[in-house]
């Protein structure tokens, strides 16, 4: 199978992306975001969960939470390149919501197949979910989960669970004998305790989740193949979020560089500022191209999906750090303050950079594919 030249990004996808950008421009300015998550400085906000559930509900009603759910389960079944376009706009707005967490669960459920139909239908109807598959070390490998299933009950702790206090369901990876099985667990099931993490990113929440003899039936008895199939989508979408956020960082910094005057010129006149801003743009374009290539591979060239997704997330992780650093540096003193909106994106990007593997992590795995593993 070969990739279509346009990444499978059809008119419908362009329409979705444009309407998402317009929606956030109309309903969710950065000013509003700052008021929501950072109006007053309180250290305890670091483990807070500030979001606008009513605005999220509007997105659900627009069908955006179901874009990736297969049509057979009542969703829109759009290709990953279209979903990436939507996520890019969510990243640009740094909109606090459980969209990415839910999409991650959708791709794993879709890879499971018929047994996950019920769970997928719940998402199509507006339920949200998050993956609970990672151990305390943040190994990004569900095979190393600390959660164990014994005699039909789950015990142990899942770490780095994204937007845990916004979601209705968890897709839990637990060791069951020789295998890693997957479980679809309501967040309020007896024995489930959500323990919020204090994180740097004010636009998301994160928790570790303790399971104490939680009764559960597996939605998939052998979950690793489904996870392996779905992870390229997870990496690609987070990379899309990063590129969208980086576009905001670039545009905001360009606007500032044009407005701010020093030594009788705007900052952008000086090549010490101009050239690195061009380099940020170049890096954004590299990541963005790699994102749509990876998204397209996921649907049209599945044998290449992992390699291309590693490339996209490696590039985007490095971009997250680079764009954030240049944005703050070129704003000078004001960029270093709480009142300047930049810190919201700086922190979201820092979180995204490491989440599901940073640049070196993805390049090491890509090297194993491209060059073969070292014995």
């Amino acid at each position, binding site marked *: 199978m070969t990739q279509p030249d346009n990444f499978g*990004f059809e008119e419908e996808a362009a329409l979705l992306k444009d309407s998402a950008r317009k929606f956030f421009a109309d309903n969710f300015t950065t000013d509003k975001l700052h008021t929501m998550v950072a109006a007053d400085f309180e250290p305890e906000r670091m483990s807070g969960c500030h979001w606008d559930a009513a605005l999220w509900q509007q997105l659900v009603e627009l069908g955006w939470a179901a874009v990736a759910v297969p049509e057979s389960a009542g969703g829109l079944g759009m290709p990953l390149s279209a979903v990436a376009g939507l996520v890019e706009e969510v990243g640009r707005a740094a909109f606090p919501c459980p969209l990415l967490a839910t999409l991650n669960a959708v791709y794993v459920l879709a890879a499971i197949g018929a047994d996950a139909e019920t769970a997928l239908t719940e998402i199509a109807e507006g339920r949200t979910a998050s993956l609970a598959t990672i151990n305390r070390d943040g190994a990004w490998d569900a095979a190393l989960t600390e959660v164990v299933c014994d005699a039909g009950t789950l015990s142990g702790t899942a770490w780095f669970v994204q937007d845990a206090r916004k979601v209705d369901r968890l897709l839990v990876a637990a060791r069951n004998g020789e295998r890693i099985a997957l479980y679809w667990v309501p967040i309020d099931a007896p024995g489930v305790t959500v323990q919020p993490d204090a994180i740097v990113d004010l636009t998301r929440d994160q928790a570790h989740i303790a399971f104490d003899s939680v009764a559960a039936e597996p939605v998939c008895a052998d979950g690793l193949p489904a996870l392996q199939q779905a992870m390229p989508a997870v990496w690609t979408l987070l990379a899309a979020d990063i590129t969208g956020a980086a576009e905001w960082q670039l545009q905001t910094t360009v606007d500032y560089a044009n407005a701010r005057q020093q030594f009788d010129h705007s900052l952008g006149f000086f090549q010490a500022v101009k050239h690195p801003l061009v380099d940020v743009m170049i890096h954004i374009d590299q990541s963005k191209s790699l994102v749509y290539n990876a998204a397209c591979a996921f649907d049209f060239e599945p044998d290449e999906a992992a390699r291309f997704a590693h490339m996209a997330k490696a590039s985007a992780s490095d971009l997250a750090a680079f764009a954030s650093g240049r944005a703050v540096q070129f704003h000078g003193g004001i960029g270093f303050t709480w009142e300047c909106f930049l810190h919201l994106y700086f922190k979201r990007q820092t979180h995204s950079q490491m989440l599901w593997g940073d640049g070196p992590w993805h390049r090491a795995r890509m090297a194993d594919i491209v060059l073969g593993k070292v014995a």
Partner: protein
Amino acid sequence: MTESAHQDTPEQVEFREHCRTWLAANKPGEPGVRLPLSPLEIMTQEQLDYLQAWQKAAYDAGMIGCDYPVTVGGGSRSDCQRIANEEMKGARTPFLPNVIGLGMAAPTVFYHAQDELKERLLPRLFSGEDIWCQGFSEPGAGSDLASVQTFAERKGDKWLINGHKVWTSLAHFAEWMILLLRTDRSHKYDGLSYFVVPIRSALGNGVTVRPLIKMTGETGFNEVIFEDLEVDDSYRLDELGKGWQVAMTTLLHERGAGDLKTPSAGGMKSKTTHSTTTSSLIDLARNTMRNGRPALEDPLLRDQIMQLIIREAGLGINQRRARVAGLQDHPSRLLLQNKLLASEIAQDIGALALEIAGASASLYLGDSNAPAGGQWPLSYMNSYGMTIAAGTSEVQRNILGERVLGLAKSK
């Protein structure tokens, strides 16, 4: 990467089939001579003869100038040069020698010359019978191109040209030169005009071409000196004083952002000579020992190689994304990055190759122990030609910052 054949128009489908059939039967045999890395390093008449014969054959088969009108020697096709390029690349044909003619002179002549001149010049340009060169840079005008001092003085219907051009690739074989010069010393930009001038026929009679030796030891580019060269006013492109605007057409196409596709080099060089790509880098790392193990197993080198593969892939996909309307916010943002990225990636690949080669990196052409016959230090040094020529990387970043990001113009 992947084929786009299934998205071709009916015309493109038919044309692609034609290219494929023709190439299968007519691809030229191995050259009897060592080919240079690129058309800009053609040194001998034998090399040129072989490459010119190939360009003529490809032109006669309809694969060059496809999208130009028949009246100027083209094929009057629609978006077919891209198809021909893909097929030539796939067939690993030799590169085309008239690279400056095809990439820069042809679109400039096409958009700015009188019909009669176009119809006379372009067919022999496409066929490769007339080699072209570019007279822009001067000893005192590099990145600040608009400060050129070569001067044309009016003598009735004629012009008398005096001046000094440098870094003129292919001038030693060229029949024609595109020439940016000054017709008015009182205005910097509005004092520039643009000519096409026959130089081969004027050698020793107003034109002197002298080779410049590059840091690599190769020749290929030249300096060209004009002393009272007389040219006809009919060789002027566009209006007097519009030279800067015409030059922008040339530069836009040189940097890959013009609207007329350039017939590109074929894919043969990756087989018959050395290529500066990550796959050659991987071969080098596989065959180089470091601490008793292949260098390819070194985690740091693996990371660095992956970084370059990612950049190389990103550049290729940029060009594909540039054709998808919904995935870009600015019409020339991606295209204006082409030259900058391609040259810097090639340079960084060269630099990493030298690190991988380690002690052997300094073994050069002619040393039997040199990795890849000493081509790595050669291509690394040549990469500086690419980051300097056609607008230095610094000038490219100014252009991107000003035209795309809208930052204030730097002096």
